[in-house]
């Protein structure tokens, strides 16, 4: 080998090294996650006006094909042991993607002990389930398929069923880069779909955008919603309001602070410890995640156990104050007397809550059963 050849080889090697090394410092590598899917089409979720950004997990970016696969899987009854139930069986679009029954009935006839939570703008939530036992959407979705009181299908069998479908194999291949089907990929796809379940076109939204007007009763209800509760003569800051905004605040138009609170339903918690069942802290007893009020008129029955059938009953609960306990939320500070709203004020508050109904969301063709 001549000196010139050795020099050239050395330079080529150095060039290769430098080029490879330089690639590592570029931020936009095309495929840097375990489930990268070069064939899938990136999907940009449109964030509605006044909404915060949605944090999408880096290892599960939204894609057109992933979302469509997720919709197929969300409505796939073969993900239940007897082929009779899908996610959508307990999360009905017409009910704000919740269950109109207090407790959902699984394939064995067994019932849960909490109301199925409404799936609305859930992509913004930092925790899942009434008790917050899941911290990611993907983790939450893993549970119902194999839960014996729900869809009761072991994940190994669920994967096998999907693998036997040429259509699903092809869809997974496009969405995730190859035909491998796993529980993780299945939940990722469903999570992608669920993150697109965005409700932002209620009458209230249109009013906020300056596109319509609220009626006098609706606007009066909105003011009650935003006012502090209590008699100003006896309660500093009291404004004879509904005190709703503290937990169901309008920040980011989420109508939930996603925190865990005891809203004075019970004085003992043997039947359901709530968040304490997750944290192990007795002072979290009776605390449940604050649900969004979006589509609240459609998503009854209400509370974690579906004990109230109507919004009138819900408002009456707060109006009478609930029951005291060692963990009741400080916002339920009127347990001895309640908010004491008049019948007219209660009706106005309910009129406002109806303005949060978004039928373009519940009837959106992109969210319905594709099977």
């Amino acid at each position, binding site marked *: 080998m001549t000196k010139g050849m050795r020099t050239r080889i050395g330079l*080529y090697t*150095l*060039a290769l090294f430098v080029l490879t090394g330089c690639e590592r410092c570029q931020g936009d590598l095309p495929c840097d996650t375990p489930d990268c899917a070069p064939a899938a089409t990136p999907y940009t979720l449109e964030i509605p006006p006044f909404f915060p950004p949605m944090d999408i997990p880096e290892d599960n970016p939204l894609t057109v094909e992933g979302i469509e696969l997720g919709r197929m899987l969300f409505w796939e009854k073969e993900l239940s042991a007897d082929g009779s139930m899908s996610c959508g069986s307990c999360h009905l679009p017409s009910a704000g993607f919740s269950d109109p029954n207090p407790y959902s009935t699984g394939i064995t006839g067994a019932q849960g002990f909490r109301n199925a939570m409404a799936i609305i703008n859930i992509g913004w939530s930092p925790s899942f389930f009434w008790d917050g036992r899941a911290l990611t959407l993907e983790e939450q979705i893993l549970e119902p398929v194999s839960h014996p009181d729900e869809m009761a299908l072991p994940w190994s069998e669920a994967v096998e069923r999907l693998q036997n479908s040429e259509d699903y194999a092809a869809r997974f291949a496009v969405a995730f880069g190859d035909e491998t089907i796993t529980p993780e990929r299945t939940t990722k796809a469903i999570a992608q779909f669920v993150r697109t379940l965005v409700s932002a076109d209620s009458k209230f939204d249109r009013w906020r955008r300056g596109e319509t007007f609220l009626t006098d009763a609706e606007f009066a209800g909105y003011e009650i919603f935003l006012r502090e509760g209590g008699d100003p003569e006896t309660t500093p800051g009291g404004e004879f309001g509904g005190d709703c905004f503290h937990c169901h605040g309008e920040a*980011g138009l989420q109508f939930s602070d996603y925190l865990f609170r005891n809203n004075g339903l019970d004085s003992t918690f043997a039947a359901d410890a709530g968040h304490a069942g997750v944290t192990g802290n007795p002072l979290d007893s009776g605390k449940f995640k604050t649900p969004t009020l979006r589509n609240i008129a459609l998503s009854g029955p209400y509370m974690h156990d579906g004990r109230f059938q109507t919004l009138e009953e819900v408002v009456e609960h707060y109006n009478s104050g609930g029951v005291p306990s060692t963990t*009741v939320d400080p916002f339920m500070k009127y347990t001895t007397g309640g908010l004491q709203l008049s019948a007219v004020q209660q009706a106005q508050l309910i009129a406002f809550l109806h303005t949060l109904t978004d039928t373009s969301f519940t009837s959106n063709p992109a969210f319905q059963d594709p099977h």
Partner: protein
Amino acid sequence: MQSPSSLFVFGLLVLVLTGCDRCNPEPPETLLGTARMNLELAWGDEPYALEQVVTDHNGYPVRLDNLQLYLAPVAFRIDGEWFEGADVSLIDFSVHAQHIESTLNAGTYDAVRFGMGLPPEINTDIDPASYPNSHPLSVIGSAGMFWTWASGYIFVKYEGKFALESGTQLLDPVSYHCGTDASYRTVTLEFPEPLVIASETTSTLTLTLDAAKALNGTDDAIDLAVDPVTHNAQGDSLGGRMMDLLVDAWQINVQ
């Protein structure tokens, strides 16, 4: 002379190396150091953890379940001049190891100053949705600490339960939510010994809040039996009283 192909490769190398330089991180600033201020909670002279039952100045058993507050901004003094550190911090005493880190020029500092609450320019009329979710003023980051666009953020949330007699269940609410521009306070604390910030090192301070002093100070005291609740979105006097009491509730130590 090398062959043309070698020259080409050499030229390519120069080009690539020059291009690659653009994506290298900025060289470290050698004159900057870090002040790490650890936040601790006390009740009187004793360390305090939330959910402990203690006794207030009137003898009422009290349990704090939630104590959160905004500190914004933090500044440090050197030779009579203030230099700003961390801008907005939400302190949540239910979370372990709360601290505030400030990047400062190397030097010897003799005092710290911080705002309790949020200065008016970032308190109202700013949409929380405009912040990234990791920001303490964002919708998610401020969960439970935001009133409305008009009234702004809750500066201090001091919540728990108390009873009028010891030995009984703690059922009565303690619920102070202090806020509004008029309630913004500034606290200045002289260091008992100088804080030396050396370049590329972290110096540690401990900032202790005596939660008992939120109810009982030298010039004022709040009686839970009379005033257990304030949500002063409209700026009632009780919220302002607690903010005044809190100004004198802090202690700083340099480690």
